[in-house]
């Protein structure tokens, strides 16, 4: 599948996301503790933009009154009804088999670009500079 450029890694710090539109599809790319996960930006329940949800941990309990919070920063709560989605899989916590949003593969690659030297005739002597930066790509 073709890889589409999402943006620079530095643009999407941990806990944030960036939305890109690829061939008409809105995709939200989340930075989860340094890993990038891309989900269709549409809640499978009623279509809210998942990019606007809050990022939380997963509350669990085996005994009423005893609470544990695991997986900090890995759970997204939909902005409309608060349903929880696993950012690493796109699956809902309450109904993982029946309710999930589409997931896309991501990768981080180095991108190099030669610096432009401008108009050689009117400038002092210049030297070529290579800028190398990490970019996030999504396969759509």
């Amino acid at each position, binding site marked *: 599948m073709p890889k589409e450029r999402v943006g620079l890694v530095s643009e999407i710090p941990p806990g944030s996301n960036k939305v890109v539109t690829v061939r008409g599809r809105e995709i939200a790319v989340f930075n989860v503790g340094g890993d990038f996960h891309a989900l269709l930006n549409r809640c499978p329940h009623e279509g809210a933009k998942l990019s606007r949800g809050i990022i*939380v941990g997963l*509350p*669990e*309990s*085996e*005994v*009423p*009154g*005893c*609470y*544990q919070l695991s997986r900090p920063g890995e759970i997204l*709560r*939909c902005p409309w*009804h*608060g*349903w*929880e989605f696993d950012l690493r899989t796109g699956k*809902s*916590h*309450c*109904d993982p088999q029946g309710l999930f949003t589409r997931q896309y593969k991501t990768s981080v690659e180095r991108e190099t670009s030669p610096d432009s030297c401008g108009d050689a005739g009117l400038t002092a002597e210049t030297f070529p500079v290579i800028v190398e930066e990490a970019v996030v790509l999504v396969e759509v």
Partner: protein
Amino acid sequence: MLRQANPFPKVDCDLHLTLPTTSELLPFLDDYWHEQVTSRGIDRLELTGDISNLPAAIRPDWRGPATLERVQTCALDAFDTDIAICNCLYGAQAVYNADLAAALCGAMNDWLVANWLSKDERLRASIIVPWQHPELAAKEIERRAPDRRFVQVLLMVLGDRPLGQRSMWPIYAAAEAHGLPIGVHAGSTYRFAPWTNGWPSYHIEDQAAQSVGFQTQLLSMITEGVFKEFPKLRVVLTESGVTWLPSFLWRIDKLWRGLRMEVPWVKRPPSEIVAEHVRLTMQPFDGPKDPQIVREMIEQIGEEMMLFSTDFPHWNFEQAEFAPTGFDADLMNRLRTGNPLKTYPRLQETS
């Protein structure tokens, strides 16, 4: 003294006995409470919502003193009932003094044994408990549990607190330990208005509010984690109206998905928890006249969820026409035999 178990008994899961006056309990009270009841004139302690001859509630041909003979004729023989679970509601379950409540409830259970259970082997009873004080209630359960004719613990739907709260758990611990379902019966102690908008003006409002009360109490037991803490506990909603259940479950299943982080011990959709732990007696059944719609409702509720009851002497049907429209004979048989036997383990021991 108990007959060999009948494998297919016809069970009535809600039959009412009426304690006419507190003085009936005098033989079963200790010296102190005997004197208190007589010297203080504690006589009629009827619940406001369960007046024994309330014309709107009691079937005309079933009015009058509930003598053993009358119950045998009108409630047992008339329906060919093999086993009937007697639920007795009285002011003992509503007085504020917890010690008085405990004394009266204990005496009522003695009264049930002496005047009813020992006189007709078809009769079973719910243990009457002073739920005003859950520890005392648990003691009463412990005291009665060895008598296998007590098959359930009786609570009311509208009391002084949500039923799921941890302060109530001693009752559930004792009930679970002895294989006794909790019967939550319509009725109120009138500590609070029967619904959350203040006191209604009319009887029709009070009656309709009962079903709302069942919804809130069922939800309380789920969210507080009663079924997580007591995984073998069964709850029987008695006189709840029944048909509110599916839409209520659709709503709370939906809400659970968005709010379950408050109650992370609720790990399954509430409807699954209810299907495993909760049953409902079928009188009154709030349904339409169209049998096709009723059959769809039964499918939504789940026929395994319902238990046959006459609700004697309350006025839910005429003559012996206890099957609501849309309930066929096979279904009624399952509601009268298979479902009760699965719900009340003690019924399989003796019948």
